């Protein structure tokens, strides 16, 4: 195949497993699994401000030719494609689907925790009716059940092949699947060097692309290039076709040069924030949190850290102080106002400020560092002395889990970005992702209720309530949604912003 039929893609991190379910898998690994495996269903896409993004609300069949949700919402029946074959030529049957989903909810793997957000928790919920019919039963109607099956974890595995590699301790062939693929996806693994590169070739039998076609590129090369400036050089020189994780400064300068296609999509299912530990003094005082919210130079931070690329989540005006919508993340009505900040600080009983430590991840330095410097400077003006701490990634996540960090910046992403999903996962319970350790009974109960709320208007109303509580309590200060800057050769077409913030290679083609 020619160079034109090859897609070369470089990333900062690297692919570390071929089975996305393995603990520790990277986003790059997810992207690979998306094209080597099929799932039952996949997300459709929609346009947002003129850019293509994935659509949570339109789920289309992938291995399933069609699906049907029972009127009570408790049963989903999938009709499998007759022509679907695994890469070894054997047909995809409902048995394979059953085995794969059983694996996803039973084995000690990542899928388990994810699928539970869609009420998929037990193997007994899955049933193979006949070779081409498959049925999922839910305990309660759950609108996230179907989208969950479109995420990266519930891959459909060639069960016969996989079973031949099981052992007593490893009944789900985890060890084997980590280094081998047994899927029906659009691409076939050619070579895999963990941490370095992956080469894939097209599966010519695969026909689940747009318009029932094969994937466009005959060959895929994925390489990890840790140095971001080099990634920018590579794509600019045309040696690489597409890059998504560039530094904001590089993306900006490449865009300015105008030689390449730069598609910047604000990561609408993600958010960067400054979190405070709501249980830890002095941040246990809501006025302290509010003071901080009004003491940050958002515009400067946005400009310095992201070069203005993305969507600020502050500076809104909420008429009558109520949230204008139930969507999340939502622009907050906060802005830099030192007087107000001082007033809040005084109200909290810290008229002279206090000292604290602000932490961020080493891996995030490029954006977090300028942001932290500005934060320190600005908080200094209201008497809060900030010591900046840069932590290696593992330490940061450990301390976050142990709830030891008082004040830090992080980001969150929701693969299934609905308001209740965000609130339930990131603002409730004593768990890692509740960064601010907020424990608000009202918020928790509304969020839990909203999960199973089928009525759209009621759901919206719940969303508004949640947003209002969130603003009132200010558990963390939302900053922005960074944009995903996909920089690619002008000839590349078909890029869609995906839920896992990686490129879906199957979409891409060369003009």
């Amino acid at each position, binding site marked *: 195949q020619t160079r034109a039929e090859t897609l070369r893609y470089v990333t900062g991190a690297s692919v570390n497993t071929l089975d996305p379910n393995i603990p520790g898998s990277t986003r790059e690994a997810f992207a690979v699994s998306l094209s080597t495996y099929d799932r039952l269903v996949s997300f459709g896409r929609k346009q947002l401000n003129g850019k293509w993004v994935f659509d949570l609300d339109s789920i289309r069949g992938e291995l399933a030719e069609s699906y049907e949700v029972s009127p009570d919402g408790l049963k989903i029946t999938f009709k499998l494609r007759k022509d679907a074959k695994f890469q070894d030529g054997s047909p995809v049957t409902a048995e394979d689907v059953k085995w794969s989903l059983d694996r996803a909810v039973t084995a000690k793997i990542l899928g388990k925790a994810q699928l539970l957000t869609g009420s998929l928790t037990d193997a007994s919920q899955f049933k193979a009716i006949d070779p081409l019919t498959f049925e999922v039963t839910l305990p309660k109607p759950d609108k996230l059940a179907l989208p969950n099956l479109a995420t990266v974890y519930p891959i459909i595995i060639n069960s016969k092949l996989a079973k031949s590699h099981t052992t007593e301790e490893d009944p789900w062939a985890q060890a084997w699947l980590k280094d081998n693929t047994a899927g029906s996806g659009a691409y076939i693994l050619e070579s895999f060097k963990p941490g370095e590169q992956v080469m894939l070739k097209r599966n010519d039998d695969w026909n689940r692309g747009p318009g029932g076609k094969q994937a466009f590129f005959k060959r895929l090369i994925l390489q990890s290039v840790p140095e971001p400036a080099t990634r920018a050089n590579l794509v600019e020189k045309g040696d690489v076709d597409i890059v998504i994780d560039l530094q904001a400064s590089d993306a900006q300068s490449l865009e300015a040069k105008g030689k390449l296609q730069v598609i910047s999509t604000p990561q609408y299912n993600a958010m960067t924030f400054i979190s405070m530990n709501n249980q830890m003094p002095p941040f246990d005082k809501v006025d302290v949190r509010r003071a901080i919210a009004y003491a940050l130079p958002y515009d400067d931070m946005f400009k310095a850290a992201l070069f203005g690329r993305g969507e600020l989540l502050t500076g809104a005006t909420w008429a009558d102080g109520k949230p204008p919508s139930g969507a999340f993340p939502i622009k907050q009505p906060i802005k830099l106002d030192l007087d107000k900040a001082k007033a809040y600080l005084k109200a909290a009983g810290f008229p002279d400020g206090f000292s604290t430590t602000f932490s961020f991840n080493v891996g995030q330095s490029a954006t977090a560092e300028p942001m932290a410097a500005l934060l320190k400077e600005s908080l200094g003006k209201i008497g809060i002395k900030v010591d900046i*701490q840069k932590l290696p990634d593992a330490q940061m996540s450990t301390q976050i889990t142990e709830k030891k960090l008082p004040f830090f910046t992080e980001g969150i992403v929701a693969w299934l970005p609905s308001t209740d999903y965000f609130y339930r996962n990131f603002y409730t319970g004593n768990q890692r992702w509740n960064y601010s350790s907020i424990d608000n009974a009202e918020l928790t109960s509304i969020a839990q209720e909203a999960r199973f709320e089928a009525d759209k208007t009621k759901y919206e109303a719940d969303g508004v309530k949640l947003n209002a509580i969130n603003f009132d309590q200010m558990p963390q200060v939302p900053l922005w949604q960074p944009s995903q800057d996909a920089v690619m050769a002008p000839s590349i077409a078909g890029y869609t912003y995906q839920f896992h913030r990686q490129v879906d290679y199957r979409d891409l083609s060369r003009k």
Partner: protein
Amino acid sequence: MSSATLQHAAFILRGNPITAVAAAGSTLLILVGLFAPWLAPYDPIASDVANALQAPSAAHWAGTDQLGRDVFSRIIVATQLDLTIALSAVGISFVLGAVIGALCGYTGGRLDRSVGRFVDVLMAFPLFVLAMAMVAALGNRVENIVIATAIINLPFYIRFARAEVNVRRNLGWVEAARASGESHVSVVLRFLLPNVLPAMVVQMSLNLGWAIINAAGLSFIGLGVKPPTPEWGIMVAEGARFISTGKWWLVAFPGLALMLAVLCFNLLGDGLRDILDPRQRT
């Protein structure tokens, strides 16, 4: 220093203009370090995002960075911290290494062997990775960077001091000191050490530059001193990532400062070696 040594130094410097320049440069650096706060035209950590990433101009000699801070002022102020890091890191390993090494070299025997083992273990470590691990473990504060740098330097000083003392331990004047009633320990500390110091000072000045570079390397992988403290290594490491976007001044000026400092120390070390090397004493 006796007048003869000074005279000799003067002789060497005359024949070795590079060393003279390096000595002058080092002095200048130290002066800049001492008076940095008065020399810097701007507050090195005051941001001015509206003026971010300005190319060098009359107002900002070395341009401004991502936050609109004056790069020149940051470089000036960073001198202090960088010299402190280098001097204290090297100083610690120097003092510890000299004392431990001298004691081992003098006594030999079991102490020598067990310290030797320890040094072997340290030397067998990939040193830069050891430094990284230590900074990662202890947190990236200046003290920890200094400690890490000092520790990975330590084995070399121990060996050096050990060897130097070992060749001298049976010299007449050492035995004479003992015959004059000195205990072993004081022979080592008061007699031998001062005599091996000059040779070690050479090592030290060569190492000063290395310590700065080492700190810069740590910064590059994200384990440098914490922001917003200006430090050359961090500035270079951050600036290096702007090379491809044409913001050359972000790496060029701090890089130049770092280079000059390292260069001065290295050349000075070379020159000191010549001054102290009896071979050169004609």
